[in-house]
């Protein structure tokens, strides 16, 4: 066991490719824990940000600035009574949230956090991601039907209609990005001098294609890549049932839509699946159009000096977060009631600062000593940081959309999906193919 643990350390491929089951398991556990923590952080951030958008304070009581609120919520949901309606279909009711959760988490096997920082690199990576995430609708439909109640059934019908319709536009936008991996045409900046080759469906291969062509697909064949990206960015909100397309759970019409009858742990599984799916589709968008783990401006700001400056970003981010936490500590009311909260926030800031200093130390150590392990750690950290950073921007956008736009009506939603998004994405696909062959 120790041998297989050590033998992978020197390699530069994914554990799946190196056929190392132990490291694959370790990666799976890290990703599972990371996504779960991200979901909790997102929960807190969403409530806080939405509150500030509406000039409220949001959670303030549990922990400093409500930082412990997600933990309190999780404990509450775990110990809540688990109700299964008497007239429901017990087995389907029981298995529906599990199917949703499995579909949401399975796709993370191919999410490329870096050239070797993924569980496995499948040669049908993007197809696998789209396919498995499309299974999530089964959980929704089953939950709505098994509840044996009106609102959940209507919510489930809406949701399945919506997800099936938007999947079409989404798939066509993805195809136009996959097409770009094979078309090495000049693009916007005219830098790529490669001849046209064969494309790829592998998630890592798609990012490497962007690296070779020295352009993110967002900017390739301007504005074709941008239009395809916008189509995908709209369709992915509809896919994950988020505002302004959250009709399946429109609370003013359907109480809570398909999960009206769910409570406690089962309900929290639905929430976990929803947020995990949001992160997963954002990861697809980042991989296909925003260069995955590549740092910004790799050609314009190139050279070892710029590499070093960009490598400092992960540490600086944590130091910046720590600075915000310390600012909050200073601005805490001085009354003795707030002493525990002040100490807690200071401790939180100290932990963040410690992580930041550690990351900065690794990067600077690598620069000074040029040690192999430190260099590799720096590179891995930088890859994972840029990927997660780009995904985090999308997660913030989700909150922003929710605070900004009112909900669509159902017929409007269907009209946009079939009569606007589908023709545009088809057109972009055709024009991309023509332009790619001509340029």
């Amino acid at each position, binding site marked *: 066991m120790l041998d297989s643990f050590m033998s992978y350390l020197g390699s530069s491929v994914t554990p*799946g*490719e190196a*056929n190392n*089951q132990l490291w694959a398991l370790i990666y799976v556990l890290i990703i599972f824990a990371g996504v779960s923590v991200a979901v909790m952080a997102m929960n807190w951030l969403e409530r806080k940000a939405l509150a500030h958008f509406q000039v409220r304070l949001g959670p303030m009581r549990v922990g400093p600035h409500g930082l412990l609120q997600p933990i309190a919520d999780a404990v509450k949901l775990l110990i809540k009574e688990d109700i299964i309606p008497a007239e429901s*279909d017990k*087995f*389907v009711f029981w298995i529906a949230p599990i199917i949703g959760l499995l579909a949401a988490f399975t796709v993370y096997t191919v999410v490329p956090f870096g050239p070797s920082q993924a569980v*496995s690199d*499948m*040669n*049908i990576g993007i*197809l*696998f991601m*789209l*396919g*498995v995430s*499309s*299974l999530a*609708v*089964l959980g929704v*439909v*089953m939950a*709505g*039907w098994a509840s044996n109640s009106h609102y959940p*059934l209507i919510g*489930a*019908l809406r949701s*399945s*209609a919506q*997800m*099936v319709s938007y*999947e079409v536009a989404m798939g066509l936008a993805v195809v136009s990005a996959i097409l770009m991996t094979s078309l090495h045409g000049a693009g916007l900046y005219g830098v790529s001098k490669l001849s046209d080759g*064969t494309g790829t*469906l592998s998630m890592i291969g798609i990012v490497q294609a962007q690296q070779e062509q020295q352009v993110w697909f967002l900017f390739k064949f301007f504005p074709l890549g941008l239009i395809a990206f916008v189509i995908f960015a709209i369709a992915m909100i509809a896919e994950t049932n988020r505002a302004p397309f959250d009709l399946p759970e429109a609370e003013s019409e359907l109480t809570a839509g398909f999960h009206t009858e769910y409570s406690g742990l089962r309900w929290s599984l639905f929430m976990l699946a929803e947020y995990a799916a949001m992160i997963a589709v954002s990861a697809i968008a980042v991989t296909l159009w925003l260069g995955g783990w590549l740092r910004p401006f790799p050609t314009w700001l190139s050279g070892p000096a710029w590499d070093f400056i960009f490598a400092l970003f992960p540490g600086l981010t944590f130091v910046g977060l720590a600075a915000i936490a310390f600012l909050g500590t200073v601005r805490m009311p001085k009354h003795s009631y707030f002493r525990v909260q002040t100490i807690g926030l200071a401790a939180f800031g100290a932990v963040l600062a410690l992580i930041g200093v550690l990351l900065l130390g690794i990067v600077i150590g690598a620069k000074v000593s040029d040690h192999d392990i430190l260099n590799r750690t720096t590179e891995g950290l930088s890859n994972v940081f840029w990927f997660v950073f780009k995904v985090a921007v999308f997660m913030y956008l989700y909150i922003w959309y929710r605070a900004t736009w009112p909900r669509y009506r159902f017929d409007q939603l269907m009209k946009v999906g079939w009569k606007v998004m589908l023709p545009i994405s088809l057109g972009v696909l055709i024009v991309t193919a023509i332009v790619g062959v001509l340029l």
Partner: protein
Amino acid sequence: MTPVATPFFFYLLSGLAIAGGLLVITRRNAVHSALALIVTLLAVAGLYLMLYAPFVAGVQIIVYAGGIMVLFLFVIMLVSLERTIKERQFNRMWPVGLFAACALLALFMSVFAKGRALFPDRVPPPPEASNTQQIGVMLYGNYMFAFEIASLLLLVAILGAVIMAKKRI
């Protein structure tokens, strides 16, 4: 990537597929049948993966398990299930079904028995990395005409569905 524990996964997936298929035809509740069918389709997708056909496996999941089965469930959910559960089946089609199943079984058995003569002994699987490319080249090169005919047929089906569903066009 070299396969791991091949016989185990083959028997597991085949067993799942057969068990799912049996459940499909024995459940009275149509939604349970549909769910069992999804299990069968996913198990078959796993078998495709074991046959070095990742593209077919991915398409199987997207098209059948993700698309068609959702539409199935969509329709079944709107049917009144209580009546179908209470009522006895009134058509007597099972002899025909039994005959068709036996004929298919005989066909499979004969292919299994004569297989060595009919098919080449062992076809080396195409390298995993170029599997999708080869399918693309085949579809858009050698079998272009059949592919286009198939898409035309599907277009006709879509148009027919729209014309039947819409009162005013």
